[in-house]
């Protein structure tokens, strides 16, 4: 099986904050990466600072930012067309079936997604569950490895330490560029860091320099 990494997250910028360092290390080895992005983050609260987006222009703005971020990372992008904040109300089986049609075609060696129940945002939990269900539809001997990302306060207490811990400080510049491609989101997020720190990149590295995952056990 040739290597191909598939990233399944619901929002434009989830890939940037969560896995862009890890993605960069795969790309440096020449491994193709495809991002299946569930929504366009239509209901995001960050509107830029000062505000430049509104509720109606936000989807188009975030779509452009997403395309830009994927160019920075040099990865393929598929936008799946769900609506922000509604994923948990969709049928998990239907979403899983939808994802499965792509997985069947790509035959990835690794799938990165959110850890259901430990991903804080309801869209993260729901999409992570659907992604894992989709992988489960693949016969056991052909199944890719799944790395599930937990960000809840309680994940280490309840799940133990993550078994995959990637120090991405060597490629942090790329991660920072990816985050900044999502301008409407990054402005608000980085502003909070900026208020406290002189060197915003060093502060961000402190905060986002490690990316960790749990290998999913079927």
């Amino acid at each position: 099986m040739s290597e191909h990494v598939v990233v399944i997250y619901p929002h434009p910028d989830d890939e940037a904050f969560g896995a862009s360092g890890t993605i960069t290390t795969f790309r440096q080895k020449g491994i193709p990466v495809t991002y299946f992005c569930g929504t366009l983050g239509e209901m995001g609260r960050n509107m830029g600072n000062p505000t430049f987006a509104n509720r109606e222009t936000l989807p188009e703005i975030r779509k452009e930012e997403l395309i830009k971020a994927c160019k920075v990372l040099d990865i393929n992008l598929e936008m799946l067309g769900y609506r922000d904040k509604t994923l948990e109300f969709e049928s998990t089986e239907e979403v899983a079936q939808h994802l499965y049609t792509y997985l069947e075609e790509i035959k990835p060696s690794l799938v990165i997604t959110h850890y259901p129940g430990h991903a804080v945002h309801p869209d993260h939990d729901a999409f992570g569950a659907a992604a894992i269900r989709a992988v489960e539809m693949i016969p056991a001997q052909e199944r890719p490895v799944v790395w599930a990302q937990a960000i809840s306060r309680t994940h280490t207490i309840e799940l133990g330490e993550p078994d995959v811990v990637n120090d991405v400080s060597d490629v942090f510049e790329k991660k920072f560029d990816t985050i900044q491609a999502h301008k409407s989101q990054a402005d608000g997020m980085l502003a909070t860091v900026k208020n406290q720190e002189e060197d915003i990149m060093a502060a961000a590295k402190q905060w986002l320099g490690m990316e960790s995952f749990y290998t999913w056990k079927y």
Partner: protein
Amino acid sequence: MEPIEINQLQKHIDDRANKDVYVHLETTNGAYASHFNEDAYNVGAFIRNAKVKYQRGKVVGAVATYRVGLKLDIGWIYAEGVNQFEINDQNQLLMAGHDREGRLMVSLQISETPFHY
């Protein structure tokens, strides 16, 4: 969006009275509220493309924060904390309230055509 100019906004609300209109009403403190602050509660609600007709609408308030109420035949629509508005290129009236970091806290939008799904 621009800071609210009350007379101008009132005129746009009046223009849309007694017509079938589509409303987007939303309030939120974000999906991460209780993640970043254990004492906070996640709260939020939105309704998109509710079709209504209001007999009267009024904007009340001063300086930084405004309230908007729309009186329906058998009910009300209400939003508090709006501080910016605009008429977009589709002639939709967008009102919103943002916090210091530019994050949306409340939104009330009125349109004669449905909002994009």
